[in-house]
């Protein structure tokens, strides 16, 4: 588990939910989302995401960071949810920023915030022995079947990494 809070945008929550692996996100630490991501999730996941898991906390932005997020959005650098999530990561001094969005990840890295995506969460859970080999492979395959795009070559590399992780643990 990460020592500091984790901030997430809608992507990993949606993709891990589709893969039946949302519980893995809870293992990473206290997961925080800004109000805009909460709204996005309610719109996107009307098929049963009415009850938000208790470990996902909605945290409002302080005025200065809300203004910063609005600036990023209005300049077209990031979408609304990603802007707020990144601002929240700054506000909470988050250990990890979880996103599957390229722009948000590049932006986070430029702000020296460690960023990972859904694939990283699944393999991280395997690396920390939260999953058996069969469970981690099943989660990987389910993730590859979700709306997250993973190229065939990266899929193969991830399967190979999954084998190496369990072989060395």
């Amino acid at each position, binding site marked *: 588990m990460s020592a500091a809070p984790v901030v997430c945008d809608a992507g990993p929550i949606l993709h891990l939910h589709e893969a039946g692996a949302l519980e893995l996100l809870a293992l990473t630490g206290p997961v925080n989302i800004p109000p805009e991501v909460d709204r996005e999730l309610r719109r996107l996941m009307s098929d049963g995401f009415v009850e938000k898991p208790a470990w996902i906390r909605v945290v409002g932005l302080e005025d200065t960071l809300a203004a910063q997020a609005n600036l990023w959005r209005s300049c077209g650098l990031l979408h609304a949810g990603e802007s707020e999530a990144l601002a929240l990561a700054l506000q909470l001094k988050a250990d990890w920023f979880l996103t599957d969005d*390229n722009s948000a990840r590049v932006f986070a890295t430029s702000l020296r915030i460690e960023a990972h995506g859904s694939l990283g969460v699944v393999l991280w859970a395997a690396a920390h022995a939260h999953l058996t080999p069969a469970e981690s492979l099943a989660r990987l395959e389910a993730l590859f079947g979700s709306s997250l795009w993973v190229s065939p070559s990266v899929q193969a590399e991830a399967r190979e990494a999954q084998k190496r992780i369990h072989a060395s643990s």
Partner: protein
Amino acid sequence: MGDGLAVLTLSVSGRTLPTMKSLELELPDQVAVELDELVRAGFYRDAQEAVCHALKEFLRHHASALTEQHQREDIAWALREVQRK
């Protein structure tokens, strides 16, 4: 509309951006029905606008090389985590 493909013509020239190209798409019937439902629900003015939005999102999300780079970084991260334990 039968069980085959629905044809959607995107004739957008001059309405919003004069330099837009026109495409003719063949869509599975079910996709066409779902597009119509989105339009009826008021999310888009018409199917053309819905498809344009979908294509923009597709292009935004499929910056393939960068996506692969990020995912490979995550694979490497997990392998480092195993070593660190």
